[in-house]
């Protein structure tokens, strides 16, 4: 423990709010979001980049918050699960997850929501296989995935054609 702890400064925007903080160099973005910013919606499932539970969107790209250091996110714009709903109003992806029973314990859910949001931002009309491939880096132990896939396809449909029922 001889090495001095290096403290660096970060400025970043999370869910539209600007934050300016001193942070230890070794601190992960996930721990920074959870412990320093108290945004505990981002969950840590494995801390080695394999389960996807901590997926957040950094400058438009899905990222594993456990594999990024907070200091690497300096100057970034980040979206987390807390930023999806408008107040108490679920967004279409969240709404579809609820309707299709795409969550059980809900621990992996923030990661799936962020990954699905990233997919739908780049592909508004994905096929089932495209959804499966895009979400294949996220692990869920409860649902068996079928209802997650249904939810994402249903949300895509709803977002393309608002007002229609699926």
């Amino acid at each position: 423990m001889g090495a001095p702890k290096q403290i660096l400064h970060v400025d970043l925007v999370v869910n539209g709010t600007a934050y300016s903080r001193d942070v230890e160099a070794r601190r992960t973005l996930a721990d920074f979001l959870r412990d320093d910013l108290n945004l505990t919606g981002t969950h840590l499932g494995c801390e080695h980049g394999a389960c996807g539970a901590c997926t957040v969107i950094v400058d438009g790209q899905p990222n594993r918050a456990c594999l990024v250091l907070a200091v690497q996110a300096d100057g970034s714009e980040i979206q987390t699960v807390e930023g999806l709903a408008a107040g108490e109003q679920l967004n279409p992806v969240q709404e579809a997850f609820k309707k299709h029973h795409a969550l059980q314990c809900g621990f992996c859910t923030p990661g799936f929501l962020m990954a699905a949001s990233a997919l739908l931002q780049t592909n508004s009309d994905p096929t089932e296989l495209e959804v499966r491939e895009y979400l294949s880096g996220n692990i869920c132990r409860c649902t068996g995935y079928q209802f997650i896939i249904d939810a994402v396809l249903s949300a895509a449909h709803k977002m393309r054609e608002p007002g229609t029922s699926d």
Partner: protein
Amino acid sequence: MSLFGKRQVRAEDDALLMGRGRFIDDIRLPGMLHVAIVRSAAARAKIRVNVEAARASDDVVAVITAGDLPASARVLPDCHPNPALPDPREPPVLADGEVRYVGEPICAVVARDRYLAEDGADLVEVEYETMPAIIDIEAALTAASPLVHTDVPLNRAAQIKLATGNTDQAFGAAHHIVRDRLTIQRGAGQAMETRGIVANWDRYQQKMVVWNVSQVPYVHRAAIAKALKLDEISVQVLNGDVGGGFGYKGLTYTEDLLIPVIAQMLEQPIKWIEDRAEHLIASYHERTQIHELEMALDANGRILGVRGRFLHDNGAYVPWGPVVPLLTAVNIPGPYKVPNFTVECDIVYTNTVPVAPVRGAGRPQACYVMERLLDAAGREMNIDAADLRRLNLIPPDDYPYELGFISRDGTRRTYDSGNVPALLERALDLVDYTERRQLQAKAPADGPMVGIGIACCVEDTGLGPYEEVGMSIEADGSVTVRMGTPSQGQGQRTAFAQIAADAFDIPFDKVRVVAGNTEEVRYSIGTFASRAGVVTGSAVHQAAQQMKDRALGFAAALLQTKTDALMFRDGAVVLADDTSRGVTLSEIVETSLGESGAPLALREFGPGMSVTGSFSPATNTFATGCHVAVVEVDLQTCKVNIIKYAAVEDFGNLANPLITDGQVLGGIALGIGNTFFEKVEYDEDGQILTGTFMDYLMATTMDMPRVDIDYVATPSPLNPLGMKGAGQGGTIPVPAVLSAAIDDAVRREGFRLRHAPFSESDLFQLLAESGPPLTKGAK
């Protein structure tokens, strides 16, 4: 308006979807300290621990070793005593001079945050004097083997024997006998949330408050109280949102005592969050068993008897008695008529992580061996897989069906209800079985290899002895339901609200379900063995009946009528023949509470609208299931493509089919993992080789087929709602059904799957060793 049976979307979801869950790692208390645990790097060794450098660090608050623990908290108590395993070796809370598996806790380092705690853990020096590890369970049982516990000869923790009928006579009269050696390798629960504990000694209330991720908070309350020498009511166990359970969170771990002990010692809140690396090496595993069994049949293919033995890998200590091998033993006959049955099991200690139930709990092994034997018999006797099962399934008229031996709960094992032949026919229809068989017979030899597999299973569910439910009607006429069985994602706040809402004819959102706090009800057993839906659900029904009687009494007095002239309608008790006249639940609450200082208007009823109900089943219920899979096997790459998967379940009456669909699908995902991926591997030194999610693989979106689910309900006569449990049925038959389908697709002489899980490489090897294709017409 009936909500029972409706695909009601869940009350739980909004908060979880918005990132507002309350998981264990989200808890932050003022002055909270963090623990990192130093774990054994050796499987079997004498150890010496030097903590001086760690204690000398400015960043370390405390280092706790075995010697620092109070005498009452040095060894885990036997939380689940069972006469079948009379003298279990329980794990030390911290290893004291000797370690018995890689990952065993040695000491705890306490610091201001987890980073500093881990820095401190790095300063702890452990000297290992290693000894040969005992890993192979067959070798462990030989006289030449070293011993995991020096006072347990042959490493045999216990033997189980189960028998009914006259098996030897049945085998003597057999027309055909099949025998096989069938093995299953251990996997793990791997909930996406690891384990974690926050403990706070509340000096002002003189109470130990513990948040954890338990499926059995009342078991933990008792164990913690004993370790801390407190009364049970001075210990409170709380569970917020828990990120998946899958059985192995239903056990008591050394950390469940360790963290409260440290909180009491330091009088500061203590948090320990297991990281995935710890979880992969040190959270309890399940499934390793070796089975050598044989089945005797008559000339038509009717089962005459099954006999044999199996070995169960128990790991280093006994966290939950012999429950896993017991469940295998009693479940081997499954839904089939097996008039003569003898099975013996040796439970064996090894230098590996202790074994405890993981979703399925001994039953996937039982289903696997029974179905593999049936498949072998079908092939050797040239009987179609479906026909062989039709011949042997217990006919619906034979229920209740007594098996002739004792169940897990000590009662004579009796299937309360069921109709597995109907499940089989429905599942066969869902995959167009007859048509597919015809296509298969006509398929060209060089085309894709398609095969069909069938497996049927039984699951003992709804285990006793009881659950208690508190119910109150609030001032606004809403209903609060309190219970002791916490949720790990099963949707209890939804399903139990549906049951309660129906009782009072109120909307779903007028019921609030509260669980996860040992102070809500006095007694509870826990959420495991597919029991909460059945036992707690029935207790909700029971409490509602008591509350209805009470409300009717009040209403009859207020309306000056008889209770049988009244009914519940839309949040009120109304006259059945004039529903415009009545009193609302809100008015009844007001009357029952009166006004401070004045006598109660209806003194004879006593105050308030609060009752406690309970349900104690006579014995457990039995859910049944039939899964049928159609697979395509590419003989070049050994890739298995599941092209059709049907799951037909009998869970009795369903409170919420949306939730049970989820249970089935999630169960199948674990079963697919158990078939192809999920294996914990140890080398001969007891080092764990699957210490990351890159080595321990689970099913992903790319591995899960679309599943056709259907239900056939034979309501259980053992509870008022006719329910059976739904928690494990999805998992149990999967390795059996997929193994059968792959064997059926490959159809080569000598090719037969006898081990799960198996990889594409394993299939390739088996193919290389197999003979020529079987002749057409052979099954």
